[in-house]
């Protein structure tokens, strides 16, 4: 008889698991940037009204919401680069419907449904037709943006009721926290629980780790992916409505390039672009990191243009680091287990 002992839960000690992970490193980086900015940049804490922490959060919220379902899609090893365009179409249709006399709430609901339908088309083409999600969503990126720009033409809708738009921009009384953050937090909890604390989420990661193993374990791979694409469409469209109200402006080009910012945040936050690993918290922290860098740059007076370069480079650097790290850990794994 062997003596039955319970296994250790974790291979590595707690401090290493907590500190040596992308989320922790990013949080340190954020704190570092803020501290350095407070010391180095005059007026960082009391900037002109355009650069307060409230505006930082307001600017970051659309990306933060957008990346929630996208993180789940990337965790399955797929990708959706049409989210920015869906945001734009939702914004355009919301504006047009409102202008046509449809009540504001109904216009919002209809726009969100349209987003869901586009997500369903993505999901259908990826799962049933069996096309690569990259090719499908590149096509939809062009198609959906094209429709958004086409239906609104060169005009824009700005006549939203001021009481609604100012409410969307407003903060919880007595705090610098905008109401939109509440929307984000609620959705983040929903998606976080879905990914990390349900059987569905276990299936999502399993698909990313090995879709065959997932299928053999009873995960309905196609249905899971389809649901995620629909969720991504719905969420992107919701952001489109909120974004439109936030800036009181419905134009077809809203959300241009947001897919890049969302993917950057997710990859930066330690979610593997190959699928299977990562946390939603990491992706969110990644989004906050980008927002913090942006704010410091803005207060410094470096314009929006530099942000393109920085976001693009950050994306490349983060995947390169992830790739190099995985090569190193594979090597170490081979050498340690060989000895």
């Amino acid at each position, binding site marked *: 008889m062997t003596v039955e002992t319970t296994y250790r839960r974790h291979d590595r000690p707690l401090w290493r698991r907590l500190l040596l992970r992308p989320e922790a490193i990013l949080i340190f980086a954020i704190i570092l940037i803020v501290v350095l900015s407070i010391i180095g940049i005059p007026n960082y804490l009391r900037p002109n009204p355009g650069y307060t922490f409230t505006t930082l959060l307001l600017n970051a919220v659309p990306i933060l919401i957008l990346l929630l379902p996208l993180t789940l899609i990337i965790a399955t090893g797929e990708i959706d680069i049409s989210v920015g365009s869906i945001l734009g179409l939702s914004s355009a249709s919301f504006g047009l419907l409102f202008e046509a006399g449809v009540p504001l709430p109904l216009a919002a609901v209809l726009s969100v449904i349209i987003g869901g339908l586009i997500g369903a088309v993505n999901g259908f*083409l990826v799962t049933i037709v069996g096309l690569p999600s990259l090719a499908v969503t590149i*096509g939809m990126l062009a198609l959906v943006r094209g429709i958004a720009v086409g239906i609104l033409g060169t005009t824009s809708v700005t006549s939203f009721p001021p009481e609604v738009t100012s409410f969307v921009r407003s903060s919880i009384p007595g705090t610098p926290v905008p109401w939109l953050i509440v929307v984000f937090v609620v959705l983040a909890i929903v998606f976080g629980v879905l990914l990390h604390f349900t059987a569905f989420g276990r299936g999502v990661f399993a698909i990313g780790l090995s879709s065959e193993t997932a299928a053999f374990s009873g995960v309905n791979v196609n249905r899971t992916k389809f649901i995620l694409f629909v969720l991504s469409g719905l969420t992107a469209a919701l952001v489109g409505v909120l974004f439109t109200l936030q800036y009181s402006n419905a134009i077809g080009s809203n959300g241009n390039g947001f897919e890049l910012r969302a993917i950057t945040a997710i990859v930066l936050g330690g979610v593997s672009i190959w699928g299977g690993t990562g946390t939603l918290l990491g992706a969110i922290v990644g989004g906050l990191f980008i927002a913090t860098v942006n704010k410091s740059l803005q207060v410094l007076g470096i314009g929006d243009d530099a942000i*393109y370069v*920085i976001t693009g480079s950050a994306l*490349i650097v983060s995947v390169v680091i992830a790739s190099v790290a995985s090569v190193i850990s594979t090597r170490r794994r081979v050498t340690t287990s060989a000895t």
Partner: protein
Amino acid sequence: MTKQSFWSWLFKARELSLIVVIVALIAVTTVTQPQYLFSEGGLRDLLRTPTLYIALAVGQAIVMITRNIDLSMGSILGLTAYFCGNLFHEAPWIPIPVVILLTLVFGAVLGAVNGFLVAFLRVPALVITLGTLYAYRGISVLWIGGNFIRPEWVPADFKKFALSNVFGVSNLLIVALIVVLIAGWFMTSRRTGRDLYAIGSNPDAAVLYGLRTKWLTFIPFVISGTLAGLAGIVYVSIYATGDSKVGLGFELQAVAAAVVGGVAVAGGAGRIWGVALGAFFLATLTTALPVLSIPSLWQQALVGVLIVGAITLDRVFFLIRLRQARKELSA
């Protein structure tokens, strides 16, 4: 004709159907508005704008044949166009051919950055080129700012080249033909070209066969960068102007032209002259839209329809052919 041969015929007839569609499109547009074809400027535009699309599409096609993608082509176009125009402006003493050569080398270097990251650091092409799409565009914006290429910068000889023709064929169309011929020769008749099809068709087998997969992954990005640089030069020669937004979204047009021209999204298949026809079709569509009183705003939506439609149809045809082949095998 058996069912299978019908489907494979239809698949192979891609180029033929593209020619038919292009001719029909030109015919319809001309009937609507005769100046479209029967005016000096009309014919000229019809025959020279495709060069831009063909250069981009051929580059994109070569990358896609190896099962990768280059989303940074539009940004490289923008950056190289300004590079070229600025060189004319700042260093007018440099001969035009040298400027062209330097611009092509600049494009090749920008492409090589993509190629290096994808091939040697094994990061997915989508992520890398999405990153450089923005990084290169950002560099353009920082560098150019509110400035733009001014017509007076561009040497008269250079502008004249784009307007002239040889025996009635636009010079630029000849450039496009040369690109297609060289690329076609390289892809169909050189070992390296054939090996590019091989790694796209089955990357695992390519490793097993001892093909130099890293090198073969790297090369196409250099080619696409160079061709995006050529597109930049062509852009300057046609328009003799341009701000920091030049080439915005052109990577999508390139993808559309490639898939419409028959490049498989899963790699391994696609002919260069089919891609050239796809690009020609897209260019014709762009000039025909306003004439057919469809606002050019809808152009991007059409690009999207073309991409989604082409890849879906290809996939459906592929599944049908596969089923036929299986039936034949088990029979």
